[in-house]
């Protein structure tokens, strides 16, 4: 109805093999702040990308102010007065604030820029909406909060009425978040309508009028924020029945294998630290899981652990040896194995054969080389052994060029290589992403076998099923800190969900063997 400024009706968006949006309906009222809540993979970004014209839906209609429209690209969206602030800012760092705002709709006379007119308009908009910026400052020199305000001004300069924010608070300090909330209130007071994607419950409660929850591509429901609680939102976001399908035997954890003390890791993308003074340890015979929404510091922590990134302060100790400054190979030799998040970037050399990739972490060992010459027969034997053991399927066996293998089998190859090293500490990040049930079960059984044989496993997972089933101890990470520690058997998914979304936190503390929670 004319009450709704945007209606997305029965939107279905499909990527090869996955329904990212399955029959979703979203309605935005004029002048409201409408939050879009969901876990990773829920489909929020996809839905907004459809609205902004980056993707076209397979099914469904979009109506703006009651009229059905087709949005084929961001230009169409702009004509309809829809604007979007992306998670990764679309700003040219060496340009000034002013130049960034006018890029694409520059006021000019016969091609010559008229910056004066632009400046006037920007100053006026800035005053009206309370968005303080320095028009002549270079984007690379200003704070992230101001960069975001520049993105907002870009939209206002183009007279956008419908404003989409994608995870806007991910990169802001607490003060900047408060400023943003004020700004959003100011925008809606002037009649703008706001959609914002988030996984943070506190902010939803504070600033949103209504909230739509998505889960696994499906629409769960829309609630009035004033009438709901954090618990209810959390339940809508993650709640489902978990099947405890894994039979784990009880193992009493042994000695501490790995300790992180006050580890701080800087972020590559913004000035905040990605990991802020974290301390925890992992013991032999246990699987510790770092749970949390993607982007809360898990990746950076693991890169620091494996040696790919440097830490700015803190210590890391593996079996009594300080590895804070150790090289990657040294850590590998001392007993760390790593199943990386991005298998194409760190895990495999795609142009190499499967055999060559399987010895990537061990090719220098006497078993595989003799005076600098690769012992091809040994490498091949080893590769075939792993292929059989871990059921790695490929077109030409050990000689297959890895680029041509399916993603799932590429992953299995990495897992085979890393687990076979028999490491003291196995670090696995999203090890089962993209795999079928059989492979997932097999990998879980491998992880548990490691644990059963007295090794330590650190798992980073975004799948709550996996987190609950596989781990012995769960550490929830939020905004670079550990905000809670749980035993999967004595907690619920909803509870963890609250911590993951920042609604609750315990004081982070160092967990030692003595204070371990009892296991039944």
């Amino acid at each position, binding site marked *: 109805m004319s009450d709704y400024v945007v209606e997305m009706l029965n939107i*279905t968006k*499909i*990527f*090869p*093999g*996955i*329904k990212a949006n*399955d029959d979703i309906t979203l309605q935005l009222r004029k002048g409201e702040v409408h939050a879009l809540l969901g876990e990773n*993979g829920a489909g929020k970004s996809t839905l907004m990308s459809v609205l902004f014209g980056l993707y076209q839906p*397979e099914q469904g209609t979009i109506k703006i102010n009651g009229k059905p429209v087709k949005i084929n690209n961001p230009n169409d969206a702009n004509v309809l007065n829809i604007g979007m602030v992306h998670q990764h800012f679309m700003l040219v760092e060496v340009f000034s604030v002013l130049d960034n705002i006018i890029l694409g709709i520059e006021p000019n006379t016969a091609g010559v820029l008229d910056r004066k007119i632009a400046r006037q308009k920007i100053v006026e908009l800035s005053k009206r909406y309370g968005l303080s910026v320095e028009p002549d400052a270079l984007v690379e020199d200003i704070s992230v909060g101001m960069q975001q305000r520049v993105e907002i001004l870009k939209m206002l300069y183009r007279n956008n009425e419908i404003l989409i924010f994608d995870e806007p608070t991910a990169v802001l300090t607490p003060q900047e978040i408060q400023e943003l909330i004020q700004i959003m209130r100011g925008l809606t007071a002037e009649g703008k309508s706001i959609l914002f994607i988030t996984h943070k419950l506190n902010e939803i409660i504070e600033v949103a009028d209504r909230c739509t929850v998505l889960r*696994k*591509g*499906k629409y769960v429901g829309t609630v009035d924020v004033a009438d709901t609680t954090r618990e209810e939102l959390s339940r809508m976001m993650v709640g*489902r029945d978990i099947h405890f399908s894994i039979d784990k035997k009880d193992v009493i954890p042994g000695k501490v294998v790995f300790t992180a003390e006050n580890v701080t890791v800087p972020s590559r993308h913004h000035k905040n630290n990605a990991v802020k003074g974290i301390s925890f340890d992992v013991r032999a015979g246990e699987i510790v899981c770092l749970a949390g929404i993607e982007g809360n510091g898990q990746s950076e922590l693991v890169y620091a652990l*494996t040696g*790919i990134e440097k830490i700015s302060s803190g210590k890391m100790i593996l079996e009594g040896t300080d590895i804070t400054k150790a*090289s*990657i*190979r040294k850590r*590998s030799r001392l007993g760390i194995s*790593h199943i*990386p998040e991005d298998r*194409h*970037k*760190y*895990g*495999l*050399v*795609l*142009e*190499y054969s499967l055999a*060559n990739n399987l010895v*990537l*972490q061990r*090719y*220098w060992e006497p078993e595989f*080389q003799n005076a*600098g*010459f*690769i012992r*091809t027969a040994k490498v091949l034997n080893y590769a075939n052994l792993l292929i059989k053991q871990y059921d790695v399927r490929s*077109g030409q066996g050990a000689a297959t*060029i890895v680029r*041509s293998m*399916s*993603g*799932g*089998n*590429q992953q299995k190859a990495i897992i085979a290589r890393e687990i076979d090293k028999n490491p003291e500490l196995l670090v696995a990040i999203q090890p089962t*992403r*993209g*795999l*079928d*049930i059989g492979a*997932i079960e097999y990998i879980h059984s491998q992880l548990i076998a490691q644990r059963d044989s007295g090794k330590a496993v650190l798992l980073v997972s975004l*799948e709550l*099923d996996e987190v609950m089933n596989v781990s012995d101890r769960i550490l929830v990470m939020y905004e670079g800190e550990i905000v809670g520690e749980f035993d999967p058997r004595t907690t619920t998914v909803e509870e963890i969900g609250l911590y993951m979304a920042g609604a609750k936190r315990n004081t982070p503390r160092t967990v030692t063997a003595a204070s371990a929670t009892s296991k039944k």
Partner: protein
Amino acid sequence: MTTKIKKFVQSPGLSSFFASVASIGIGLIFGYILLAFINPSMSFYGLGKILFAGASSAEKISKVLYQAAPLMLTGLSVGFAFKTGLFNIGATGQYTVGAFFALYAGIVLKMPWWAALLAAMLGGMIWGAFPGVCKALFNVNEVITSIMFNWIGLFAVNLTLSNIPKILDKISANRTVNLAAANKSAIIPKWGLDKLFGSPYMNISILITAAVAIIIFIVLNKTTFGYELKACGYNRNASIYAGINAKRNIVLSMVISGGLAGIGGGIYYLSGTAQFLVIKSLLNMGFNGIPVALLATSNPVGIIFSSLFISYIQVGGEAMQPQFSPEIINIIISVIIYLSAFSMLLKGLINRILTRQNARKEKEKVLHSSAGNRGDGIVTDAAISNKSESEGVTK
């Protein structure tokens, strides 16, 4: 049956070979069109020379082999650098410095030929180190550094030669002295090949270079060192995670590359039939290593053949005079290089078309299934691998 054919067609070795052959074909056609443009009546004559002159007599054949030898080495030099992710356009400078070291060792120090060749290698290695270090430590683009050092090498060698009277010819002081007069032992032996081919030019240089090519092949494919270098070139991140020292490998790679070009210089000028001229222009031999490497997709064994091919058409080109300028061969070669930049594309294009067909089929399947996602949120293999394909995973 069709899937088997598809797999065969997709195999990298075959598509590379076809791409190379296609590039050569188009290059020759372009050359012919140019000939026809310039002198229509003689165009067939010219084409005939290009295609057949190299094999027309024992002397011509030995010229092809004799000129292919240094070309093989500069090709190996460029190809080796390519394999490890670097573009060694400085092969000319390394070649020149190598030649100087060889001549100095042979003429002034009176060393035998094999020692002079080693000296040549040393000279090239030193000269290759400069672009390597500049890139590894200072991140200066190796192309510009190499070009600068091409010229610095040329002038430095000219300067040094001019001031070593022993090296220079008594009569024309802008060339080095005839090796036969200065030090017979420095001349690369013939081992009877000159009689076999009936040409005084023929010597064992082609055998030496073929041996070097095989050594490089072994190093690249059978040693841990080669394993590390290639990994660095293919995927620096993964090689870092494997514990490989990327900076060290960049320098080593350029040093070896330089050494190969250096030996090339030695091979050519220790033949006894060539004298080094003190002139102000860069030698072509180094630059011609680039098409040799590209045609063979940097495979050392392939380089043996591509260097023979390039040498063959060069001999043909020289035979086209006076009707046509031999530079037409360079035009053909440059067209071949330009096309080789596309051949990788052609391969990628074929792959992408096939992947897109798969993706479309998957989409259809999901759209018409009521299940949609599995309740436990697991996506299929195809989804992830297709997504990463479209995310531009290629380097």
